[in-house]
């Protein structure tokens, strides 16, 4: 079995991964850095992020206000030391991207322009039209090309973390083009593989979002934190799940029910005004807007379609000029994928699984409890997002904590010993597993797509916008059944060259582990907070649950849930208030 060796190894080449790689290269140019990604880096899902990146930029704003919006938006489950570091470093990181060429929108005088965003009391969202993630990713990718110490493993799929003696020592990966299975040793590993929306049937997430990094860390013994908190974005196009950015509402779009009524006014989110009001109505937080949709549906005020009930997003009053200038991608997506022109027509939308607040538990430097193993971006839970992430906080999270993890990993790698011989034995065992369980397996009745479909249906039914104990318990049983059946998968494809069916089977394994962690965390959290709403426990319960869920994998493959305290620095838990009351609540 071939082996290569580096100092710092990134799994994933999106916003967090590339930022981490550049940070490590800048800290110590002598380090050898590897970026291992199952897709070419510019295909990474950061590319799909639309609306913008939050960072205090204007004199009327302050770091404390950004922190307060983030913490109250997260229903007080965020770690406040992490939030304070985040809001402080976000503007610097966004500025660094500007210095690398990111085409941010500008004011007429040449300064950075900012726009409003949901749950944010001030305008602080930097944007590059409505393709912010695309421009950030391509800027990072193109910039990374000038760093010679960065070696890329494009289209290599990681199947296992090599951990021995309490520290990470590398990975086993398959080179898709050749099918070669290889050991890649490293003194520090940073997981930046993003989220896992594909665990659900209806998601904005790309096909590659399968929770790879979460499952790799979980299997290696690291805990997954706050996995029950799953964000439904309120405005996805039916059937495709394509995201219509929150910027569409920040620019002044209305949410209408079947009667053309701005229904959010019925859900304690303020009163309708013609122009957008910050932290009010359509600019409320995503969890509350998605929950309001379900209530409207229960009242029979949504519009039925073959792909589920919808409400309407109305952009017509914004006019063609503004839509073309500020929301060109929204118009393009509506025209190309929904055959609707938002300049003249209502856009049908429904809540869609979008983002994981939870992830691999890390400290403020991105370190996991396994020595040398780091995580950053959506795959990680630092936690700044708490029980509900605010729109435009995830892109800066990628670069802030990507940079932090890159620097910290470089420091660890600079003083780490070489790998133990025993990890090579582990690698050979992993190669044998891939061969015997998939490529040379005889028998087996199950198809990847069948089990995947049943898993997705289970997750929607038991861990959707509203949850209740019995359905969660049923979901947990079903996932256990699917785990067992997945051992009986039979691949059509036994070839080595670019075997995407093998890749899908391994991704399904990751998703089943991640799904279990979500359902178990949701089952044990008998309260309602942010994006986790239990119909059988409708109130927030700070006495018992002002705490992070930590899911660990037991040696028999089952899971256990423990809790760890939330770090409160300056903002004691309070009531989440939006709409008109928000003004007074914040100024107190």
């Amino acid at each position: 079995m071939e082996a290569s060796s580096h100092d710092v190894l990134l799994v994933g080449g999106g916003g967090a991964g590339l930022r981490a790689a550049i940070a490590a290269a800048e800290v110590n140019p002598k380090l050898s850095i590897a970026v291992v990604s199952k897709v070419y880096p510019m295909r990474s899902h950061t590319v799909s992020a639309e609306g913008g990146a939050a960072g205090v930029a204007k004199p009327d704003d302050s770091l404390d206000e950004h922190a307060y919006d983030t913490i109250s938006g997260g229903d007080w489950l965020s770690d406040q030391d992490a939030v304070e570091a985040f809001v402080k470093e976000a503007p610097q990181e966004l500025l660094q991207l500007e210095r690398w060429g990111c085409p941010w929108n500008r004011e007429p005088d040449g300064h950075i322009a900012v726009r409003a965003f949901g749950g944010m009391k001030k305008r602080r969202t930097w944007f590059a039209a409505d393709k912010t993630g695309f421009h950030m990713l391509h800027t990072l990718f193109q910039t990374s090309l000038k760093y010679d110490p960065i070696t890329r493993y494009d289209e290599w799929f990681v199947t296992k973390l090599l951990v021995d003696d309490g520290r990470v020592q590398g990975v086993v990966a398959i080179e898709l083009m050749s099918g070669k299975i290889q050991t890649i040793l490293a003194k520090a590993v940073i997981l930046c593989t993003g989220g896992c929306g594909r665990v659900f049937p209806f998601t904005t997430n790309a096909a590659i979002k399968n929770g790879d990094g979460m499952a790799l860390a979980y299997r290696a013994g690291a805990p997954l934190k706050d996995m029950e908190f799953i964000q439904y974005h309120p405005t996805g196009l039916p059937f495709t799940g394509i995201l219509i950015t929150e910027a569409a509402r920040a620019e002044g779009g209305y949410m209408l029910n079947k009667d053309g009524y701005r229904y959010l006014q019925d859900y304690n989110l303020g009163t309708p005004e013609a122009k957008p009001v910050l932290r009010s109505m359509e600019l409320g937080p995503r969890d509350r807007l998605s929950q309001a949709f379900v209530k409207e549906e229960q009242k029979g005020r949504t519009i039925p379609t073959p792909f589920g009930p919808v409400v309407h997003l109305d952009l017509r009053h914004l006019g063609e000029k503004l839509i073309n200038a500020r929301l060109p991608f929204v118009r393009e997506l509506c025209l190309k994928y929904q055959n609707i022109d938002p300049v003249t027509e209502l856009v049908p939308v429904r809540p869609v699984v979008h983002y994981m607040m939870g992830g691999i538990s890390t400290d403020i430097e991105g370190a996991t409890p396994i020595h040398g193993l780091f995580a950053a971006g959506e795959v990680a839970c630092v936690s700044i997002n708490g029980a509900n992430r605010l729109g435009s906080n995830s892109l800066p999270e990628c670069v802030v904590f990507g940079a932090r993890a890159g620097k910290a990993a470089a420091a660890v790698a600079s003083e780490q010993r070489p790998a133990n011989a025993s990890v090579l034995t582990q690698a050979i065992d992993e190669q044998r597993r891939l061969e015997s369980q998939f490529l040379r397996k005889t028998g087996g009745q199950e198809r990847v797509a069948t089990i995947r479909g049943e898993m997705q249906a289970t997750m929607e039914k038991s861990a959707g916008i509203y949850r209740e104990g019995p359905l969660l318990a049923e979901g947990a049983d079903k996932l256990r059944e699917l785990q067992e059946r997945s051992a009986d998968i039979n691949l059509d494809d036994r070839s080595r060259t670019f075997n995407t069916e093998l890749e899908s089977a391994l991704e399904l394994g990751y998703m089943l582990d991640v799904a279990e962690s979500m359902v178990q965390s949701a089952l044990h959290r008998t309260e309602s907070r942010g994006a986790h709403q239990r119909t059988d426990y409708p109130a927030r319960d700070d006495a018992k649950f002002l705490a992070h869920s930590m899911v660990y994998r037991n040696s028999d493959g089952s899971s256990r849930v423990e809790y760890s305290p939330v770090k409160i620095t300056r903002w004691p838990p309070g009531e989440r208030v939006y709409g008109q009351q928000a003004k007074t609540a914040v100024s107190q």
Partner: protein
Amino acid sequence: MAEKIILEIARYSPEQDHEPHFESYEVPVYKEWVVLDALNHIKDTMDGTLTYRWSCRMGICGSCGMMVNGEPKLTCATFLSSYAKNGNKIRVEPLRYFPVVRDLVTELTDFLVKLKKVKPWLMPKDEPPLSQGEFLQTPEQVDRYKQFSMCINCTLCYAACPVVGLDPVFVGPAAIALAQRYNMDSRDQGAQERTAILAHPDGVWGCTFVGECTRVCPKHVDPAGAIQQYKIAAVLDWLKSFVTPRGQDTKHARSEAGND
């Protein structure tokens, strides 16, 4: 019952085949379905060996480019229904002019080498500390390069370019457009460094201005425009070199194209 359509898909596995062949699959035509949905339907329910790339399904990751009835297309943005009338067959092949890894997957290594060759990163005149804030850039200055910054690296333009077909070392439309994206950026001073590759015979002068790259671009990047713009600027720069000795002139192709 939904209407049906036949997909004729190019299949090639280097472990089994000497050359590509076509296999036919009958799939339902739903009005919401794009060609990529049909491929996923085949892979999930009929033939797990079918091999192709895809990811975002919203036309921004650039993974799913293929030849559809002879035209380079993003399959996530190409509706089955638009072909349903044309004899009920759709031919799907890997993007032209690239080596084929397997079935519909092309080899992109050479494309990535070309992208890096044009030095697609910002080279500012100086780098003051971050505390001094952003480089100022007016909306008009952003507009000068914005279009060329929209490339998603889907490589449809390479599959459309007859010069790429004849001369594989030609740097190609997307890479030249990317170089011009930085050349046209008011914050950048790297135009001269990029000249070595762009002004080389395999650079812009390889282009015979067929314009197919611009026609097939799903993001309206207009690589052909970028190439023409650079050619004009390069000629002006060359003429100017007779007037001003090289090295003293700080204005290069970029500024001649009207950037300041």
